[in-house]
């Protein structure tokens, strides 16, 4: 049967030199072992904490919506207001910034300025910005709203700019060849190419902002996060559980409906 020699084939390895390959793999394993060795775990403290942690988990079995309902509903309304206002403002502000940050549409100085705004907005986590604005505006939802608006601008403008840089230039060229001016090219050739994804991203950002509003509340920026933090401080885990369940519920509703909206838009 086999007159000619069988020619075996294996995919070429990522690192061609066998010795170097072995050395890198062994080095990585050794580093991992040493790193694990340096972790100090206080097992007594863990055992103690497990009890408290369990009490917290057990509270989910009997969430307490009633005893603090006034504070919970107030926090929720505040959070939802913060979310909607900051999303609308942030999306509106991200339009010019995103347009300016698209290299194919904006001149270089505008491009650099807008990329700078995006970088500033994206380089700090929401919670750090929230701490800064709480210092500036005092405790309460105003600081939270400004934080979320600022973060939304960076997020939306970056993704919009990337979409704008990926548009099909032929469509732009065709509309321009008909004698359209800059603004007409924008609304006739560019807007149809990016609008569906932009709306989808705005809805996605709405649900991110709601989740973030719960986090930044912990540093004093108002909303349901503040209520949640208070309940932790009072060891009222039933109330905490109720709040967390509400947050999970709302995020799931937002997730589900944003999925439907995005599917409809294509």
């Amino acid at each position, binding site marked *: 049967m086999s007159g000619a020699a069988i020619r075996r084939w294996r995919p070429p390895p990522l690192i061609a030199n066998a010795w170097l390959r072995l050395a890198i793999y062994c080095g990585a394993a050794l580093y991992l072992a040493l790193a694990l060795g340096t972790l100090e775990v206080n097992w007594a403290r863990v055992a103690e904490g497990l009890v408290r942690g369990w009490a917290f988990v057990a509270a989910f079995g009997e969430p307490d919506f009633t005893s603090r309902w006034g504070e919970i509903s107030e926090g929720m309304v505040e959070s939802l207001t913060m979310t909607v206002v900051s999303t609308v403002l942030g999306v509106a502000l991200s339009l010019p910034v995103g347009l300016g940050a698209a290299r194919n549409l904006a001149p270089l100085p505008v491009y650099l300025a807008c990329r700078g705004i995006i970088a500033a907005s994206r380089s700090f986590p929401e919670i750090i910005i929230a701490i800064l604005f709480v210092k500036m505006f005092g405790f309460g939802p105003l600081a939270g709203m400004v934080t979320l608006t600022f973060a939304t601008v960076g997020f939306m403008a970056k993704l919009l700019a990337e979409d704008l840089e990926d548009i099909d230039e*032929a469509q732009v060229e065709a509309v321009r*060849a*008909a*004698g359209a*001016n800059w603004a*007409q090219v924008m*609304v006739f050739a560019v807007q149809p190419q990016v609008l569906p994804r932009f709306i989808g991203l705005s809805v996605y950002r709405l649900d991110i902002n709601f989740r973030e509003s719960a986090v930044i509340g912990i540093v004093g920026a108002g909303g349901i996060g503040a209520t949640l933090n208070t309940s932790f401080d009072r060891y009222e885990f039933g109330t905490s559980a109720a709040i967390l369940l509400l947050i999970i519920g709302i995020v799931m509703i937002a997730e589900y409906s944003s999925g439907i909206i995005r599917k409809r838009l294509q």
Partner: protein
Amino acid sequence: MLRIRGLSKTYRGGDRALDGVDLDVPRGQLMALIGPSGAGKSTLIRCVNRLVEPSAGEIVVDGAPVTGLSSGGLRAARRRMGMIFQEYALVERLTVMENVLSGRLGYVGFWASWLRRFPQADVDEAFRLIERAGLGGMQDKRADELSGGQRQRVGICRALIQDPALLLVDEPTASLDPKTSRQIMRLLVELCEERQLAAIVNIHDVVLAQMFVQRIVGLRAGRIVFDGPPDALTTETLTEIYGEEDWAASSAPEDDDEDDAAAARAAALRLAETAR
């Protein structure tokens, strides 16, 4: 109608796409521009409406210079030049009607175009053109729902609703099957005749060009090397334009099939030997 004198284009990076092109196209003439890829065909028609900025030379359309215009003047000049593209270049997410009406953007203001409030006369003309191109009833279909031939018909409507004096056509049939290609070329010829338009058609398919146009211009490395009627195009001139090739053999595809069959038989024999 169209007068080009000394047109040159050197791209950044030093590629000399056009080198002193002189060309006149009279009213009502359908002219095919042939030449190998990279000869400067696309650059030439894009220089006419200044989608590509010429490095030197003069372009005059209908007695009015195009080179040296300000951006406002250029937009006004572009209204008189309809352009048709190889990959159709329709705005995919807009409807057929919106794509056709986009040819009127040079004539309407910003708000009217954004809110899609085009003058009734434009809408009437759009309906007429859509029906003339054989797309009756499709005005509300989205462009990405159409077949290639239908898209190119929309592209033609968009160019014609501009009420152009000159058509710039870039490889109109390169993405279409042979039958649809002929239909599109026939439609172009008829429409140019009806409206007495001058047209430059970039085309790779020399045989198709010979069937439909009155004049062929051959471009090689940015220079015009042939200009004459379709039947004056000999194998020598084709060699001059495209380079050495057995032009007679390329029109006889049966030979290729036989070669393929022979190659397949040889491969089968070799396989059989290895298995033994």
